[in-house]
């Protein structure tokens, strides 16, 4: 299933959200990296999710799939972040771990 791109962008948006002061509370006992690190990581992951989609599906379908999966990943993250911020963060990490396995499916 070509959902790696969506999982990576979910994690990317999680990083970008946690790089903002107002989304950083309520996550104890988690220790977050600094805002700057998360911001850079977020953008890097977003670029990676684009690269993965293009590598998997070619330029035309890849870019379409990348934008589409971002459009679903971001609302899902925001829903989860507003309800269970810790679970959202954990899920972002778990999703990233699943990516290499998904790539072989």
């Amino acid at each position, binding site marked *: *299933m*070509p*959902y790696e791109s*969506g999982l990576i962008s979910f994690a990317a*948006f999680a990083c*970008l*959200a946690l790089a*903002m*002061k*107002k*989304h*950083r*509370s*309520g996550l104890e006992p988690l220790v977050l990296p600094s805002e700057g690190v998360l911001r850079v990581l977020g953008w890097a992951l977003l670029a990676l999710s684009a690269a993965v989609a293009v590598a998997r599906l070619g330029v*035309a*379908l890849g870019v*379409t*799939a990348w*934008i*589409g*999966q*971002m*459009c*679903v990943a*971001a*609302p899902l*993250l*925001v*829903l989860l*972040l*507003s*309800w269970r*911020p810790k679970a959202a963060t954990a899920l972002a990490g778990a999703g990233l771990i699943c990516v290499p396995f998904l790539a072989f499916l």
Partner: protein
Amino acid sequence: MNVRQSFPDRPAPAPARALRQSMAWIHAWLGLLAGWILFAMFLTGTASYFRPEITQWMQPELRSASVPAEQAAQAAIGHLQATTPGDQQWFIYLPDDRTAVTRVFARAKPNPEKPPARRPEMKLDPATGQPLEARDTRGGEHFYRFHFQLQLPHPWGRWLAGVCAIFMLTAIISGVITHKRIFVDFFTLRWSKGQRSWLDAHNASAVLALPFHAMITYTGLITLVAMYMPWPVKANFDKPDAFTTAAYGAPAEAKASGNPAPLLPVTPMIEAAAREWNGDRPRTIVIRNPNDAAATVTLLRATAGRLNARPDSITFSGVTGKELSRSPSPGPAIATAGVMLGLHLGHFAGPALRWVYFFMGLTGAAMVGTGLVLWVVKRRKPNAAPFFGLKLVERLNIGAIACLPTGMAAYLLANRLIPADLPGRAELEVKAMFWTWFGLAILSLLRPARRAWIETLGLAAIAFAALPVVNALTTDRGLIGSLRAGDGLFAGFDLAMLAIAALCGFAALKASAKPKPPKQKAAPSHRPSASVSKPAKVRENADAL
């Protein structure tokens, strides 16, 4: 400025603020006027991403069998040769992994004395070519057609849909200009805080899926642009046919010669076309003047897996098997139009991307729905009786947002409950949807608005939850059986209905929760920092909408 003249005490707003305010006005009113129809267009359009699957579910008598294109084509031609060999044209729509049957449509030769009766489309078994009997239904096609024709006589439905799409595009652009905290509030969603929550939900559903909303609205308009703006074609071409020829290549309109000649098998032609198309198979076959010396066979390429929704085609002679013509490689304009149509329809998407499309469509419906509710919440005064306009909008909101899903469920329920052999049952199914939808909207007037929200949403939950039950009772393809047999389509459909029922139930539950007192600190919050935002800023942002 007029504002200054009529309110001499008020200072003229700064230009940026004035622009934002005028955009907010456009956003609120155009969004409201088109909102109810747009919500219905989004919801039925979203369902249409599963058009063939809905059709399959609505004909449970048929089971899909995967058959190679060559075999299905030859079997269908065998049936047509046996029944109507002297026709003018045969259309054969081959099955793919999403459709269970071969569909054929045969057009008889024109007869000036007695025009032949229009024959219905037929469903054939892909493997044997034998006609299949299944309950008469419009299937997923109904949601798809309603999505842009709105069940109105042609061309009014398409015009109304186009006007709404233009309003939508305007609302998107004005909404982006109005929303000054796009990046600050990018990930912000605060629950149970009245107006602020609705604004958050509207912003989140709109901003986070903005590329989809802009794309789907614009490409939807472009799809029917030749109808909305026919003048460029009229100015440059004498006849519409001349434009079609210039854009898509000359149609193979050879006259019948009158000399009989046997029709060659199509399998070698399909193989020849597949070699040209990187192994792609045809989706549609058009045979003109079969069994005549001038017979032609046109193969139209399947579009799955490619963004461009305009199929290439190759035409062969039906007698010699030689290639006669092929569609010209499209110029940039035609290719762009084809890709836009493809992006809108999403036929290129495999199962994974199809679900992505489905969820993006739901965010669209959520954006329109939350916008409609926000309009009311923002204008409601806590200690004053609602004025007429507010009551009207709220009632229309209930009718559109809470009653339409029940109508759609009723359409599917009717498919199982109306006897399979009843004449005119396809129309009855459609009627079931509209009677339920509008009937429920009228009945909900009898209840106070808050109760009406809770009860109509609860009813939608019950209706969707009833679908798997009714399916299990009326067919032999219930959820447990489908799961056991590995029937992904039927199991997936039932599970999706249960998920939608849960969503409607959750909405009813949320609507029935007692509204919290509007005090700032009263509501407990997971994230204290979110509630310490500057009230003035929030106020200003809320005013903008």
